[in-house]
């Protein structure tokens, strides 16, 4: 189980690819990729988004289901998805609403 993430070019915001091929600011909206074909298709979209100057540095992250909720396996990616662990007032964790890139 994976998701495709990147940073938005114009402001560096962490984004993920969603089911509608948009780049969204919240992990909960990310498309879960199962299998090589889905990953390859996602990378094609990412390549187009890189060429279109929307995102930079796309890469796959491992996901897992914990108590019913999807979350990144690595702490690094969990921090990217929420914000600095000692500053709940900063980053995505500080804003309840999401929006598409």
């Amino acid at each position, binding site marked *: 189980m994976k998701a495709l993430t990147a*940073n938005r*070019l*114009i*402001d*560096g*915001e*962490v984004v993920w690819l969603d089911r509608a091929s948009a780049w969204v600011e919240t992990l909960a909206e990310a498309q879960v990729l199962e299998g090589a074909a889905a990953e390859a298709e996602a990378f094609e979209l990412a390549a187009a988004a*890189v060429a279109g*100057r929307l995102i*930079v*540095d796309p890469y796959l992250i491992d996901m897992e289901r914990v108590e019913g909720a999807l979350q990144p*396996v*690595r*702490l*690094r990616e969990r*921090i*990217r998805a929420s*914000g*600095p*662990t*000692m*500053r709940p007032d*900063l*980053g995505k964790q500080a804003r309840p609403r999401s929006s598409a890139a």
Partner: protein
Amino acid sequence: MYRYDEFDESFVSSRVAQFRDQVRRRLSGDLTEDQFKPLRLMNGVYLQLHAYMLRVAIPYGTLNARQMRKLAEVARTYDRGYGHFTTRQNIQFNWPRLQDVPDILAELAEVEMHAIQTSGNCIRNVTADHFAGAAADEVADPRPYAEILRQWSSLHPEFSFLPRKFKIAVTGAAHDRAAVQVHDIGLQLMRDEAGAIGFTVFVGGGLGRTPMVARKVRDFLPETDLLAYTEAILRVYNRYGRRDNKYKARVKILMHETGLETLRADIEREFQEVRSGVLDLPKAEVDRISAYFAPPPFVPEQAGEADAFARALASDPALATFAERNLAPHKAPGYASLTISLKPIGEAPGDASAEQMELVADLAETFGHDEIRVSHEQNLVLPHVRKADVPEIFRRLRGAGLAEANAGLITDIIACPGMDYCALATARSIPVAQRISERFAASGRQREIGDLKVKISGCINACGHHHVGHIGILGVEKKGEEYYQITLGGSGDENTSIGQIVGRGFSYDGIVDAVETVVDTYLGLRQSPQEDFLAAYRRVGDTPFKEALYGTA
């Protein structure tokens, strides 16, 4: 302090215009990320975990109130209301938008600041003793030489694409507060028997994944040869430094692989080629630059002033504790250098809010001859304050949460941004520092422990200087979990040593207990309260600490 001349002003302004155009071309698609990345890095712009990061240079850690206010304004207008002062005496903003960076750089240029050479394989911002020009034990002010090196190295065409980054530090006192022996070049100012100024020159120090203490290549380099000799070192490094492996590209590896005698001979040979030419440092130029750093007009100590200060301390224990830890001896009678700790208990080391920056700017203007320093220990310093003004400064600092009396104590922790911000980090640093700080929060306990430097890095690159911590902590990722390795006995002063790994690492939950075990072991074995942690460690070695931590040596 140094003021830009017309050349500096036009150089920085044109650089801002150049980068504005580069950002425009990136956003319009004329530049790819591969083309743009080296350009943004040359202007201090990184891409970190959550956002871009802008690193702004604070040459040799010296700035004035106007500059500090501008940093506060940038924090408030373009960032999230705070900045992070770094172990290289710079400041980082963690949340700027790429499209805003040209405007930020333009604002910084208004107050003679920039982000040039804060990244990339060039000569980085030259660092210096944070008590420069003030310290009672100073041989000479290192800042004029740091400034000369800055001017010489800025966009030096020959040294803009070195094998790897290159860091120079200068100290003006025998007691090294600038950690010169863990820099690529370390310069220690001294006088010869005739009283002439010169430098002891160290080469090949560094931290990172291969920590090494620099080797002395010159006992005494005359002042006039500073640039010629530095250029010779850089030329030798540029020619022989490895470019095949970035992890073996620093000059410390060249020193290690080549050997001191051979490398020194190479440097001397090159030096003979370049000396007595355009790089000779004319006395008039040294004097011209030094004039920018002339001491402020110190007010002679008035009769009774010292007694009044002593009475103030006697009547206010909190002030007395603050003075004991956060005042450093000054060369002028009645003055002190005052450390403003950016390590309030439980807070992120090195962070300051825009409001705190503005308060420090106000204090510098009102009480400190308009001078502020950033220390490599991530604190701020008012280098020249009258002791008579300390009670009022303390009162105002306390109102802003900046009066922690912990300079040099266990809670005065260096910590890199770690995995809470940094794309390279493998573990968190700041929360570990915060938890240690909270564990040892009691002022009496800290002071009972005494001088103790704890330094934390969130990855092997060692931005938190853990190798030279009396207690060093290195965070790594192991099987998806954060683990923290403890090193003991490191030091970054004139008796530099690299800390030794004490044993297997500790979990995130266990690291604070482990540090406490180390501290309690020290308290149990020290010969007297005057024997500080490092002295005790050097006397007994690591065996008692291993036994305490692991139950076996």
